[in-house]
């Protein structure tokens, strides 16, 4: 079975060639690896490859297909892209533009200031909203020229991550 695995900004094509107990032959982007892979504790895999030992921690992410993966030297965000998620992705493509028009915050915080009003014309780079978290204030700027269509929050509100704050058009 072949699936695509997104690791950071790289998308790797992975195919299982053979599996016998803990021994597996797996092709990653055209390179064939013969490994001995064992789950040693919940979510932690020990992999032996050419005599080299790797310990890989898999921490569940936000969905069943998302992981945080830690190796000794690195940490990655990983997403499994199978047929189903590929289909969903292609369907969502149309809405990419619309998401840019909605300003959200990647972190929970508190609304400090909203220097714009609904109906106001803004140009790219204008500050739309200031969010404070952990004693730091961050400005969120317009990503395009437009008009403030809707403001979903008030100054002083606590906001969750990915919550829509302001919509442009």
């Amino acid at each position, binding site marked *: 079975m072949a699936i695509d695995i997104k*690791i950071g900004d790289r998308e790797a094509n992975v195919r299982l060639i053979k599996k016998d107990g803990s021994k597996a032959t797996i092709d990653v982007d055209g390179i064939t690896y013969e490994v001995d*892979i064992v789950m040693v504790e919940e979510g932690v895999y020990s*992999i032996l490859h050419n005599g*080299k030992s790797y310990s890989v*921690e*898999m921490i569940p992410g936000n969905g069943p297909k998302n992981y945080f993966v830690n190796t000794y030297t690195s940490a*990655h965000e990983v997403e499994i892209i199978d047929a189903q998620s590929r289909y969903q992705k292609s369907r969502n493509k149309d809405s990419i533009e619309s998401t840019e028009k909605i300003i959200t915050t990647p972190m929970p915080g508190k609304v400090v200031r909203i220097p714009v009003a609904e109906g106001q014309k803004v140009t790219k780079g204008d500050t739309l909203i200031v969010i404070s*978290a*952990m004693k730091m204030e961050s400005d969120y700027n317009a990503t395009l020229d437009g008009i403030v269509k809707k403001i979903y929050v008030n100054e002083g509100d606590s906001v969750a991550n990915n919550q829509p704050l302001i919509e442009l058009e």
Partner: protein
Amino acid sequence: MFKKILIANRGEIAVRIIRSCRELGIRSVAVYSDADRGAMHVRYASEAYYIGPSPSRESYLDADKIIQVALQANVDAIHPGYGFLSENADFARRCSEVGIKFIGPSSEAITQMGDKITARQTMIAAGVPVVPGTQQSVSTPDDISKIAEEVGLPVMIKATAGGGGKGMRLVRDPKDLFSAVKMAQSEAMSSFGNDTVYIEKYIESPHHIEFQILADKQGNTVHLFERECSVQRRHQKVVEETPSPFITPELRERMGEAAIAAAKAVNYEGAGTIEFLVDAHRNFYFLEMNTRLQVEHPITERTTGVDIVKEQINIAAGKPLSFKQEEVFQFGHSIECRISAEDPFNNFMPSPGVVRHISEPNGLGIRTDGYVYEGYEIPMHYDPMISKVITWGRTRAEAIERMRRALYEYKITGVKTSTKFLERIMVNKNFREGTYDTHFIEKHSEELLTPCASEKSVSVDMAIIAAYIDYTNKMEKTALGDFTLTRTNDKWKEYALKKSVQRI
């Protein structure tokens, strides 16, 4: 000796103070806000009391409430930690008014050192070098050129009401002097409503080096050597080390003496830190005194073996210092890295949230002072620092390599942290050579702050393989039910099954 101490703080420092209380057999009292009911310092203390809503102003900075809880819990002393009320002279005074010992200096010493101009005058009187310049306002062209001539170019024009880099102008050429003063004045006027500016010598390639001081009530004052804190970002320390790779034994001795003189000048009591700026020619100038425990105190503890919090408590209880200056020595080298919940590759955007998984480094020469645990939600209301890693080595090179290993092993998942950024500092050539100053991060920003592209390496491919196997196993599990998977994958269960069959 005290029987019970209230810790007017939260986070890693509250936990660290409680550790010393436990070793001294002193009961500890934690205080907490709405956001901190489940926090580690509450779990770890002997007692804990609620002090108000999550914003600091309404809880950890509410002196009334904290004193009220202290009286109610019948404590002998209050340890303020760092930040919050630790340098609040009024709070220190009010503690003593209600008969509770404030673990720190007198409110007079806090006030004297807290005011920039008073501190500067006190230091000049004590013979401690300060940055040449003037604290009086300058305005006439004659004044300006006279002072600039006295201190020597380059100079910095600074607004007395200033802060955050506003109202500041660097002048290298005498012909730019007047226009720079005018510009600084107008900028200061528009930013602070006060156009008073003064002139200070500009320190080129400065090093930020501080000395740890301990002073008891009996009048004994010792220093525990220096800490090099030049790796800073926006005046926030990021990495600290001791001994400093920059200063010489002779300079260390002179700075240590100056630090003791500075502390004595204000009849200092307790633990404190004298911060100096050291220029490229190894001239040093008093910058300020921090009248409290510092974040980076563990590197001093690691190389001298002195538990600074314990000493603070002993001094506050009236005990004399248990050692003399000539008995203090440093063994090996120690480095501290501050781990923050922020994204170094996205302009240090704060990253509060739930910690999904944490594994801390361990082994010889490694100490972690933290407070987060799996499932803990890092609140958005407080400082982003979640942990400190302190390493020790017989040599500086060993301490750096150990820090690299520790940072690799330190895995905090669920929130973004600064560990990758710190790893890059540990491999930076200038850092490893010990030839860096306070411009370090700025100078190397490209190397330190460029987001890493996903490399192609065997190690990454192994991560991909593990993800593949884990995901396909999960799929099989859903398709075939649990039984097949357990039987093929879990040797222990298989073993247990065999055992129980044999027993029958």
